[in-house]
């Protein structure tokens, strides 16, 4: 009988709903595979040093694979390189690390698609155009920055939509809340707030509700149905998008298992993702899982029970 393979799912920080859901998917994959044990771990605050400490202890335990959602694109590279030197398969998912530090990166969805999606969600509810603002996570988070960049690229396609400010809530509820208050203050004509982060979107919706601006300012972006259900119901958010974090955790685990099994991550390769099918790697060894899915008053209740 083969020994159980150990796959570590390293997240940005423990306790965040999105990652808890990803863990659910990873456990599902482990059960399906039978001979895989998933170690769900991560630092308690979203710092690179914390993740390095975690990665070092995973290397010491001689895990077979590490799948990481990185707090910092570059800072993890030395530690992850060391892991690869010791024969550990390393992939990144959700938030990526620089190519030298991993075999492949699994994007939840393609970055241009997400960038387009978040601005589209805002624009769809603004037929006459208007001012919108972005509330991001930490200024250092890789994925948010990429999405905002992609969003700005397609901005000219949306006539009349002005992005008036980009602020950072650091993925802290209170800071996001205060930043939103600031936005409401300084931009009296604000029509929408785009928060491509699950912490920020909830805080922004709360701040808009408290300021009595429901109906005037629409909060949208990326969030979890379970956390956003109330705000969709109240009208603070008309719609938002997210990919399924359970699927993401599931896919990352499956890919890691495939790599342990001998598959090679190179441009053009197709890696197996169990029930999610396969992912095809591009020239940067990156692949995308699926399109983001839109949630609104019609379907949010149903998904809120799941994640």
């Amino acid at each position, binding site marked *: 009988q083969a020994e159980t393979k150990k796959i570590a799912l390293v997240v940005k*920080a*423990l*306790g*965040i*709903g999105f990652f*808890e859901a990803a863990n659910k998917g990873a456990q599902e994959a482990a059960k399906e595979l039978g001979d895989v044990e998933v170690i769900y771990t991560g630092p*308690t*605050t979203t710092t690179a040093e914390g993740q390095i400490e975690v990665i070092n202890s995973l290397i010491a335990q001689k895990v077979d694979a590490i799948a990481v959602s990185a707090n910092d694109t570059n800072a993890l590279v030395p530690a992850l390189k060391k892991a690869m030197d010791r024969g550990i398969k390393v992939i990144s998912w959700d938030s990526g690390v620089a190519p030298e530090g991993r075999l492949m990166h699994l994007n939840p969805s393609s970055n241009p698609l997400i960038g387009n999606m978040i601005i589209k969600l805002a624009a769809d509810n603004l037929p006459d155009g208007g001012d919108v603002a972005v509330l991001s996570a930490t*200024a250092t988070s890789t994925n948010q920055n990429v999405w905002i960049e992609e969003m700005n690229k397609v901005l000219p396609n949306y006539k009349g939509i002005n992005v008036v400010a980009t*602020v*950072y809530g650091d993925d*802290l*509820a*209170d800071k996001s*809340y*205060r*930043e939103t*208050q*600031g*936005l409401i*203050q*300084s931009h*009296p004509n604000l029509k929408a707030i785009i928060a491509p982060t699950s*912490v920020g979107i*909830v*805080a922004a*919706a*709360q701040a808009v509700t*408290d300021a009595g601006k429901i109906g005037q300012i629409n909060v949208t972006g990326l969030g979890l149905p*379970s*956390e*956003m*259900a*109330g*705000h969709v119901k109240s009208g603070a958010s008309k719609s938002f998008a997210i990919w399924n974090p359970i699927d993401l955790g599931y896919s990352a685990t499956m890919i890691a298992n495939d790599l342990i099994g001998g598959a090679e991550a190179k441009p053009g390769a197709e890696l197996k993702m169990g029930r999610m099918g396969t992912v095809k790697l591009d020239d940067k060894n990156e692949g995308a899982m699926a399109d983001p899915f839109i949630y609104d008053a019609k379907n949010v209740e149903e998904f*809120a029970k799941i994640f």
Partner: protein
Amino acid sequence: MKLLLKNREMLLVVAIIALLALIAMRFPPFVAPGNLANVYNDTSILIILALGQMAVILTRCIDLSMAANLALSGMAAAMLNAAFPGLPVPLIILTAVALGAALGSINGLLVWKLDIPPIVVTLGTLTIYRGLIFLLSGGAWINAHQMSDAFKALPRTSILGFPLLSWLSLVIIAIMVVVMRRTPLGRAFFALGGNPHAAVYTGIDVGRTRFLAYCLSGTLAGLSGYLWVSRYAVAYVDIAAGFELDIIAACVIGGVSIAGGIGSVGGAVLGALFLGVIKNALPVINISPFAQMAISGAVIIIAVAVNARAEKRKGRVILRKAEAAHG
């Protein structure tokens, strides 16, 4: 005595007005009464916490665990609400306050009965309390949708046009004024901080008084825990992480002497407001959010330097005393 205290508080009032004027030049709507009320509301929790911290600092101690206490009490309140949505909110608040007081009393007991230096005690309990939140919640967040509407609504309830949170902080300021000025306990805080040795001669039990100061700061932290969690409608391990330093900074800016014995309710409130105005203003006057931290740091340093100037002991003036006596 009053004059000098008044002076220091006046100085802060002037500083805050100057600050508001400066902000108004860049962004006039900031000083609209409605917005100022918002800023006050946003600073309410800091004010409440700063008052608790002040009591502790007055007795020559320090409470680094206040923010962790807040987070733990807040998480407990949120989890209680999530688990039993039917539970009356006042009961939940009471639980949070009691838990906060209990956590504060642990600090107090360690300082009182074991004579461990306060900074070590609260440094230790800071990490322990944070860790307990993780153990309690398993690291999971409690989100808005898990909280009952009544739970979230309380601090937002509007009375005479102002949210209850603002009123609550005003009530606590009033209570603290009375406690600090007109109860033996409040006076004992000042006396003991000014001269712990002499305090014994006046029948003040130094250890017990410090214990009570910690209970007070813990109670206020517990209350703030509920307020924080319901106001921001979310609870997780890291809420208010690092906030202990803001609390201490508010006290220091407000002229509370870190060496104990000197401070006032008015000063602490103004110190908190000063920080609150800066925090709220920076995002709207288009100063890079990244400058925020550097500015608060500079403000703290300037405030300490100014306060130290004001505090600097005048010489005993043997000569002038002689002249006065003869003249």
